[in-house]
């Protein structure tokens, strides 16, 4: 394949003379990474730095009777052995609740378990030593006496009267419950020509970031300050939490985030072992490093998507969808994760089911229950893959039942492209979506009719191929409606500070963070465009709470849409300030001047008037030569938060084409398509790569990934040899297409693109498998991941 590195821009008001908006400029930080010269937290080494390893509970639920630490303390290289009770004197516990999820409850969680361990893998004792290996040696010598307690492992029975209550202080094992009943659901089902009722299961899975979670905490007793090098998505949120639970103020805590080896929502939560590491540094007055090993990652990185959804759809013979109904049950582990809570995922499922369609009748129930497994929380595309699998699985089963083409059934039910603004049955507010245009684009991009013909030809030869679709909506650019209104100190606004340096280049500091998605490139593009310099004159600084505007970081597909807009506005403001100085120097009206390609020019003619470097020289070194009353302000900050809409919804549709080997149950993915609408596209290449990466993460959920637990709450496959992730050979090429419906909430008009791929991929793969197997009379598959065994069972072959 030939690499092309640019797409022709489709521009509007953003089309400044040297605009980078809509161009696939390479990310500025890539050379460092391709040469192995990045700096991940795993790489950080500080003077006097010690390493911590944790003794972790082998039981899903157990009382900690005693911890004997003497032998470990004598082990070579060991500096300290610290129990939960000892650490609790330094760090207070936390409770993961949000007031806008009414009734959500949880129990206090400690950095290291005190009295009870509530899941296999929970830390019960810390060993700090000169090296990680010596710390692990010490862990082997810590003698913990446990009294095993009954473990709650099955969400289905977690609320039964006979099931033990995990936290007696909170009455029962119900964390959160939500019910919704809109329209006339029973009447709609009664008037349907066909009703499909089924149960979907999404396998509990996890993020498997390539770099495990890592932090280095450095308490400086002399400064009374904590510096935390942290592989996180949200440095300011972590600054607040570290300060709060150590009894410090924000100015005493600096969080530094350099390169992060993959995040995907895994690294946006409070982890007990990371909190413990920070507390240990304060306790020991020296730097302490924690890097999870892979086994620790599997039993402590948040899990997600462990849902069982009973679901029902009604449809008329003309294809009209009459009603959706779901009953969602999810087991989230023993604690609601702090501070985002573990109620959001189920809440999202309730919000999103049926979201692309006009159907006004919708009933939903979701129950979130405590179990003695690892905790679950928000992971890339939170709730979307589940809701889309349910909705789109129902839609394609309904289409099959009434004998209608699945795309045609969608055409008859998707919200019309001219119906906006509007809202869904669940009450989601949509500014502007493009379901029909996206569907039409996909139809032609994949040559649907031709593919159906090809499928039929292969079918005649006994080769069983399937085509499956998934329309979807996606939450992006969240306002304070997501967390702030519920009392969480997680900011939805973000900021950018831009400075003209003394050589006429621009330095940008921003609160959004780089997790590899290309946030730094997007910020540079926005500033270069709105200010008017070549992009190589822009340097972006992220991930430092001492040196960036207060911001939320990276989550919920917000960095480009929110951080990009703040950067765009900051660049504009700096341009105005620079032109005020230029006007004074050139005796011209600032409004008659512009900055293009790093030079102040006459706006009308484009004639060069003054290089920025010369302006900076005068402003910084010879301000005495400027007219009286002219003070150059060459550093400005702008912030942005969406206000008109609680979320900028995006939409799209995916298709999967695959072949099922009916003898082995193996699925071969042949091709995947995704058309999505993220509004203004700042960098087409980065958007496409977000889509592709997201699709493959969703395919992992559909075909491979599941955290398996036994009846005692023991995770059975906590290694990468046993927990399967997508590798190159199994993955298809992925073709991306776009529709552009900018949001009017910002000047840039960009919405998020980070999660669309993950949202729709599992459903499209599921539908394609069922499309391949339906003519064979196979049972419909709805229990992800679709392993060869499940496929052979559906075919009745095993």
């Amino acid at each position, binding site marked *: 394949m030939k690499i092309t590195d640019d797409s022709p821009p489709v521009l509007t008001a953003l089309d400044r003379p040297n605009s980078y908006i809509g161009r696939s400029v390479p990310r500025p930080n890539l050379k460092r990474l391709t040469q*192995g010269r990045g700096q991940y937290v795993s790489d950080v080494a500080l003077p006097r730095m010690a390493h911590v390893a944790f003794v972790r509970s082998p039981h899903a639920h157990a009382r900690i009777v005693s911890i004997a630490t003497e032998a470990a303390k004598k082990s070579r290289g060991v500096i300290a052995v610290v129990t939960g009770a000892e650490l609790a004197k330094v760090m207070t516990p936390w409770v993961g609740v949000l007031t806008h999820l009414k009734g959500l409850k949880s129990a206090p969680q400690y950095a290291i378990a005190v009295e009870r361990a509530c899941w296999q893998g929970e830390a019960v004792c810390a060993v700090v030593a000169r090296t990680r290996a010596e710390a692990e040696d010490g862990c082997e010598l810590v003698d913990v006496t446990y009294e095993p307690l009954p473990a709650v492992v099955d969400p289905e029975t977690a609320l039964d009267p006979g099931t033990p209550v995990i936290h007696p202080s909170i009455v029962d094992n119900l964390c959160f419950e939500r019910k919704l009943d809109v329209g006339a659901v029973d009447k709609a089902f009664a008037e349907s020509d066909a009703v499909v009722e089924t149960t979907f299961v999404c396998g509990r899975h996890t993020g498997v970031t*390539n770099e495990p979670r890592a932090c280095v905490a450095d308490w400086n007793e002399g400064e009374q300050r904590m510096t935390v090098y942290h592989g996180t998505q949200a440095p300011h949120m972590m600054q607040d939490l570290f300060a709060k639970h150590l009894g410090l103020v924000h100015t005493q805590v600096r969080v530094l985030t350099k390169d992060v*080896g993959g995040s995907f929502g895994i690294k946006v939560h409070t982890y007990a072992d990371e909190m413990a590491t920070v507390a240990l540094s304060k306790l020991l007055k020296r730097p302490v490093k924690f890097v999870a*090993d892979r086994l620790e990652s599997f039993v402590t990185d948040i899990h997600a998507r462990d849902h069982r959804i009973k679901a029902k759809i009604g449809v008329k013979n003309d294809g009209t969808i009459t009603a959706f109904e779901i009953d969602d049950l999810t087991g989230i582990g023993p604690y609601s994760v702090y501070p985002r809570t573990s109620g959001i995922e189920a809440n999202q499922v309730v919000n999103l089911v049926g979201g692309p369609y006009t159907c006004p009748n919708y009933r939903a129930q979701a129950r979130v229950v405590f179990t003695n497994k690892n905790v679950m929380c928000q992971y890339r595309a939170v709730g979307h893959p589940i809701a889309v699998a349910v909705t789109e699985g129902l839609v394609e089963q309904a289409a099959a039942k009434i004998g209608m083409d699945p795309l045609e059934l969608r055409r008859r039910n998707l919200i019309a492209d001219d119906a906006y603004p509007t809202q869904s049955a669940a009450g989601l507010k949509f500014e502007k979506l493009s379901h029909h245009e996206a569907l039409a684009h996909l139809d032609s991009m994949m040559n649907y009719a031709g593919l159906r013909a090809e499928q039929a030809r292969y079918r005649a030869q006994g080769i069983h191929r399937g085509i499956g679709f998934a329309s979807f909506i996606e939450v992006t650019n969240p306002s304070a409606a997501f967390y702030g209104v519920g009392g969480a100190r997680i900011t939805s606004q973000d900021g950018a500070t831009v400075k003209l340096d003394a050589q006429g280049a621009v330095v940008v500091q921003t609160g959004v963070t780089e997790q590899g998605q290309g946030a730094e490139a997007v910020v540079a593009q926005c500033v270069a465009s709105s200010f008017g310099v070549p992009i190589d004159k822009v340097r972006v600084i992220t991930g430092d709470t001492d040196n960036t505007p207060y911001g939320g970081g990276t989550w919920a597909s917000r960095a480009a849409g929110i951080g990009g807009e703040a950067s765009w506005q900051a660049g504009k403001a700096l341009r105005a300030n620079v032109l005020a100085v230029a006007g004074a120097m050139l005796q011209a009206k600032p409004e008659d001047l512009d900055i293009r390609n790093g030079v102040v020019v006459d706006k009308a003619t484009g004639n060069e008037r003054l290089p920025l470097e010369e302006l900076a020289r005068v402003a910084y070194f010879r301000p005495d030569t400027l007219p009286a009353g002219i003070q150059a302000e060459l550093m400005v900050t702008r912030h942005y938060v969406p206000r008109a809409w609680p979320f900028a919804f995006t939409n799209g549709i995916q298709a999967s084409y695959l072949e099922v080997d009916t003898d082995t149950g193996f699925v071969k993915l042949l091709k995947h398509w995704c058309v999505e609408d993220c509004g203004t596209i700042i960098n087409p290449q980065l958007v496409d790569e977000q889509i592709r990466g997201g699709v493959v993460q969703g395919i992992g959920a559909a075909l491979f990934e599941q955290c398996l637990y036994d009846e005692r709450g023991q995770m059975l496959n906590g290694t990468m040899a046993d927990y399967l992730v997508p590798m190159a050979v199994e993955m298809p090429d992925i073709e991306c297409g776009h529709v552009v419906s900018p949001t009017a909430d910002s000047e840039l008009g960009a919405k998020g693109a980070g999660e669309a791929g993950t949202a729709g991929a599992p459903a499209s793969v599921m539908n394609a498998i069922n499309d391949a197997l339906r003519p064979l009379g196979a049972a419909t598959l709805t229990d992800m991941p679709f392993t060869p065994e499940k496929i052979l069972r559906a075919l009745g072959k095993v």
Partner: protein
Amino acid sequence: MSDTALDITLTVNGETVSERVDARKTLVDFLREDLALTGSHVGCEHGVCGTCTVRVNGDIVRGCLMLAVQCDGATVETVEGLSDSGEIADLQAAFEQRNALQCGYCTPGMLATAQDLLKRAQASRQVPSRDEIREHLSGNYCRCTGYHAIVDAVEAVALARVGGEQ
């Protein structure tokens, strides 16, 4: 326990290195901790993810499945060496241009593995198919890209290198 330490001498990125190492220490930990060559990363520590892939005596190996003491007398090349020598400059440029990396954590191992395939392609004067590229890279886990861009980049370099010789 780490009571046993051994003296080893090896060549790392062209430099002779003599160190005393714990017998239990893996090659990748030795490279990262003793030599501060942090370009080689640790992902799973049990030989599955390929993040720690380095070259030993010309062959790509998992740095987590080989002990440092096994490398006494060996020639080891890491991403730092491959970068500084210019051997993979075209491959790195293709990765950058095609955005074939996001977080970059798998990239040093991915580049070493891809270069192994590309060298074979040059030797045989055969441009590998996309399926062959995917097969060869299947011991290297990337969570970010979905692999498509990596395959594009490797394919482009294969065409340039082999095509250029034909």
